[in-house]
């Protein structure tokens, strides 16, 4: 965290997020209010994440945001992975918003993550059948895009 705050000494969103997570005693039994509060911190940290160009600070914010994502979804794996899909897709959209070549690569990478996490959200659902069904569906989607 000091890496980030060395660069941005007045920005306490990152430490606020971490400090709130430290106050939660049981991540397996979060109240709705706690989930909402964690999500609020998570969103704030992601704003930092998006706005940061320094690589080390970016990584630090990323780590904090994922810590919050884990916490928010810890009671339900499917929700966790769906949350990841959301974040990956969001980052992808953010990258896509900028049209530089490197951003296109970034967008593709995160979009891939989004797809992987989306698939994992099904994997986290009960039963191998659901996982296999989703994998088959994802392959159908792959064939669909390769044929365009």
């Amino acid at each position: 965290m000091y890496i980030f705050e060395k660069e941005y000494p007045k920005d306490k969103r990152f430490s606020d997020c971490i400090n709130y997570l430290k106050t939660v005693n049981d991540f397996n039994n979060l109240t709705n209010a706690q989930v909402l509060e964690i999500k609020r911190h998570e969103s704030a940290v992601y704003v930092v994440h998006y706005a940061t160009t320094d690589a080390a600070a970016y990584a630090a914010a990323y780590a904090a945001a994922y810590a919050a994502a884990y916490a928010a979804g810890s009671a339900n794996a499917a929700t966790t992975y769906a949350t990841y899909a959301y974040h990956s897709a969001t980052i992808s959209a953010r990258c896509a918003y900028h049209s530089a070549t490197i951003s296109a690569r970034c967008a593709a990478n995160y979009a891939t993550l989004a797809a992987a996490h989306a698939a994992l959200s099904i994997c986290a659902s009960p039963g191998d059948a659901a996982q296999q069904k989703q994998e088959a569906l994802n392959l159908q989607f792959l064939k669909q895009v390769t044929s365009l």
Partner: protein
Amino acid sequence: MQINKEFLKSLNPCADRYENYLEHNASFDGSISDFLELDTISYEDKVWVAVRVLTSNQVVNWSVLCAESVVHIFEDKHPDDKILSNCIDFLKTVNDSIT
């Protein structure tokens, strides 16, 4: 683009995955669509290869389709939170500009 053992080797796959490919498909030489039909290649390996040969637009299109197919899981839990759907919609609108 043709998928064959020489091309796959150039992607630097894990040794065990490449050996699996050679064991079952050493003589294969086909398109990515043909590759996706191979029964002896795992889902993970197909995806691994696909994201390395598709264009950025294709990968984004694919991820959007996958994410759309499971977004209901998120929205069943958070029915008032449309941020994921909105994000997917946004991705769809910008995808044409990120080639």
